[in-house]
């Protein structure tokens, strides 16, 4: 029939309808995760079919359920790194140009989500931006887990170039190389060398444009495109 030559499309329709069996569904979800067009196709089907629920009678659930749900949220509470990823995903999608300060505030708010303990010490965040106001990367250092994560908000190095991350300030005599980064970089925070609270608060992260594989000299050779200062998130 109309779509017999496109099994993916048929799968998207049946996925939304709910008639794929468990194995087919798992396989389809895996394909969908790697294929935004397929995900959009499935969403379009969900949208078409959801219209049917105009005729579904609303039914009040028992009142006690919400308390149970709230209790379960505590177990589902994401950690800071996941949280940062979420914020990054949201921003990337929103593609809203935000100033560094506004963005930093957003992160600070996001990571201080209400489910977390009031004592949320040892988290530092930075929004790296260039000349414009568009945030290009976000970075977070979690002292407790000793991890640093740097995530692109859509920026990527042009062909035949790499982006390299550097740490500056906090008494460093020269920019300290932290390696080439792509969409996401995770590294032990020890790589920063200086990880006291005072040092972190005085550290600026920068990204320079380098030949593929990074600077051959150990110092930035290309223009510094994005910079951002680490700020305590609390």
């Amino acid at each position, binding site marked *: 029939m*109309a779509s017999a030559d496109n099994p993916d499309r*048929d799968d998207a329709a049946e996925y939304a*309808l*709910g008639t794929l069996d468990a194995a087919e569904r798992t396989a389809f979800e895996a394909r969908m995760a790697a294929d935004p067009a397929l995900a959009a196709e499935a*969403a379009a089907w969900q*949208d078409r079919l959801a219209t049917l629920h105009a005729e579904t009678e609303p039914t009040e659930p028992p009142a006690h359920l919400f308390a149970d749900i709230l209790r379960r949220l505590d177990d589902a509470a994401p950690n800071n790194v996941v*949280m940062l990823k979420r914020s990054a995903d949201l921003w990337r*999608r929103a593609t809203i140009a935000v100033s560094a300060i506004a963005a930093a505030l957003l992160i600070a708010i996001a990571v201080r989500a209400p489910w977390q303990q009031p004592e949320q010490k040892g988290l530092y965040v930075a929004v790296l931006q260039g000349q414009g106001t568009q945030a290009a990367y976000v970075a977070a250092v979690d002292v407790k887990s000793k991890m640093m994560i740097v995530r692109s908000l859509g920026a990527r190095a042009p062909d035949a170039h790499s982006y390299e991350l550097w740490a500056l300030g906090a008494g460093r005599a020269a920019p300290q190389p932290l390696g080439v980064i792509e969409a996401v970089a995770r590294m032990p925070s020890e790589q920063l060398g200086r990880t006291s609270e005072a040092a972190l608060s005085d550290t600026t992260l920068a990204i320079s444009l380098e030949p593929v594989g990074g600077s051959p000299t150990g110092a930035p050779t290309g223009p510094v495109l994005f910079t951002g200062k680490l700020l305590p998130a609390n």
Partner: protein
Amino acid sequence: MGCPGVRPDASTYGEGFEKVSKDFLVAMDFQSDAAVLADLLGRTASGDRAAFSRLYDLTKAKLFGVIRRILVRADLAEEALQESYVRVWSNAYRYDSSHASAMTWMIAIARNQAIDLKRKANERVAAQAVALEDVSLPAAETSAEDSADYRRLRQCLGGLAEDGRDMVLLAYHQGYSREELAQRFSRPVATVKTILRRSLAALKECLDGKR
């Protein structure tokens, strides 16, 4: 620009205007609902429990209605509702308003949970007869409150072959699997699959053609 809250009535503008005005207001209400839900979902994504709580209040009855059609057993339906909202909470950051409305997105989550639980329960009590609710075809009469989308969908469903339409509706509303449909319609599973796919393709063609 007039007094807020005062809507022109038919006696002032005639029946034609009343009709247009009503459609417009229905559309506006729908729009604002959708925007409110999308906003609450966005705030839920950043961990705002108050927003999540409000989202729950606004959507629980609809989602529970959706789930109850699939899961007749109350305990399973409640479990599915809980699981759905936990997923809404932890997946809210994935919601993309350019793909679907917040309600559509949440309904999809609720249906997946309900269907999962239904299939698991069916495995547990393999031979238990499934309560066969009558196929609920959308009522033939349209009312002014119906959205244009709903009217169009109903029209297109009406154009499908009867078996296909009933299968699609049973699968969608009651979470029937291909096997359950095969049993109910006394057809081989492979035939059910073919009929489903053919019906969905025809439905899409009809819906897209009338846009």
